[in-house]
């Protein structure tokens, strides 16, 4: 069981969600984050004060899936989140040791 964590552009959320449901993944968790990377930020000016803003709004998506589905999930996200422009984001995959569904107490694969 793995967790796939992806940093994506905010307006891509719906497409990614659709791509995932398309391959049978029906659960995920989304966090609003700010990302710093190669993508250029912008300058904000408030009267005399200029600020170079290098943190850009991104969404972090976390999807827990059985290990055998990881490749499919990564592919689905890559395809749907891609614009081809700098700042499209990253995908990281981690190992989950254990999972529980709080409502039922089911564990591991059953918990997803």
């Amino acid at each position, binding site marked *: 069981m793995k967790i796939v964590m992806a940093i994506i552009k905010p307006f891509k959320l719906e497409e990614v969600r659709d791509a995932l449901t398309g391959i049978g993944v029906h659960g995920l968790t989304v966090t609003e984050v700010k990302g710093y990377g190669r993508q250029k930020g912008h300058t*904000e*000016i408030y009267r005399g004060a200029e600020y170079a803003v290098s943190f850009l709004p991104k969404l972090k998506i976390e999807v827990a899936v059985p290990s055998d589905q990881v490749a499919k999930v990564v592919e689905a996200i890559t395809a749907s989140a891609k614009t081809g422009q700098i700042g499209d984001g990253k995908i990281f995959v981690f190992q989950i040791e254990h999972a529980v569904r709080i409502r039922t107490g089911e564990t591991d694969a059953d918990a997803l």
Partner: protein
Amino acid sequence: MNLKTWSRVGIPALLAASALALPVLAQTATPAPDAAAAAAAAPVINKGDTAWMLVSAILVLAMSVPGLALFYGGLVRSKNMLSVLMQVFYSVAIVGIIWVLYGYSLAFTGGNDFFGGFSKAFLKGVTVESAGGTFSVGVAIPELVFVAFQMTFAMITPALIFGAFAERVKFSAVVLFVPLWVTFIYFPMAHMVWYWAGPDAVDAAAKALAAADAGGKAAAQAALDAVLSDAGFLYKMGAIDFAGGTVVHINAGIAALVGCLIVGKRTGYGKEAFQPHSLTLTLVGAGLLWVGWFGFNAGSNLEANGLTALAMMNTFIATCAAALSWMIVEWLAKGKPSMLGVVSGAIAGLVAVTPMAGFAGIMGALISGLVVGVVCFFFCTTVKNAFGYDDSLDVFGVHGVGGIVGAIATGIVVSPALGGTGIYDYTTGAVAEYNMATQVIAQIKAVLFTIVWSGVGSAIVFYIVHAVVGLRATVEKEREGLDITEHGERAYHS
């Protein structure tokens, strides 16, 4: 302040003047009947009226900033908030400047039936002593108060339009659009609807005619005709409009529809969720619009008297009624009554009551409000979705449609038989005979004229702007939000 004065001049006068009405441009050669006007006793300025009109001008400003700015701003996504606020503030500021340079003169001096002249450009000759007529014979207010009051109308009207294509136009397009639109669409419209010789001139000429002996009858009649013909095109058409249903709301609503069709839909329309970023702000804006609208509607009486109070009551009751009727129909149709629905209904009611504020009886306003709430609900939901245009903030659905409903309904509810005030005839000094068919037809003609004028004219202006600076922001800028990309700032931080 509006077409109503024509209405007060009445149908008989309309008939008398009708020969002059067409061809309108020829008629502009008629000498202005200043002599007759001057013959009347100087009208008196009452400080109570002045105080009220000062307040009214302030209230109408509050409708734009912060009222309309918040009402609209709350409905967009937060990344475009400042662009909306900026568009409204810019409209107000630039129109103020244009108004004192030549706008007031173009709208409110004699000229031809379609626009005035430049005799009061730079407010030449308008001093602290200048008096402007009201709608009562012998009652005046300082002309500068009238200048201020009318200015606030010109300020808010272009700002209304931007709601239809919010979240996607370049600020430079807005910067160019406003001066062009007010100059070529709004000022002529204001002139056509609101310019007339004033009650004292008509009254004096009518009295001179009555007093004339057989020999002088023809000359006196000619003088009266000249006074009556010294007015804008729509004014002479016989439609009535208490506070600007045509000039402001239909005019802006149609320009908005044309604009959103030309500009095109927002990127992501129909796919992404465009939820209002703060309905709280929309409520605040709606509240301030309502509060300010009393200046707009009741202020349009130019005096502080019982009729002003009637206009105020109508402005209260039509608003309440439309808020409730939208709420109920939404509850029935969608299963839940929403706060946005209630305030949308309230604004629709305010729009609809604008032309009838000082003409309708309170029950007439109430029923008009109930009707407009339902009609606008239908347009903003079913019709818009059916046609698929992206009028982002429903400017057409509320101001255009609500304005049309109100303008036509005004022809009905003015009926004395239905509790309305009827139409005053300054030539006889009494309320005129009322014929509903005649009046409703006049109202419809004025509406149609406004639709054509604003539709065609605004389209031309939009295409000019498109050609010169371009209308639309790039998709990337739209995605990132206009606040950052056009204005270099963001509305909210922690």
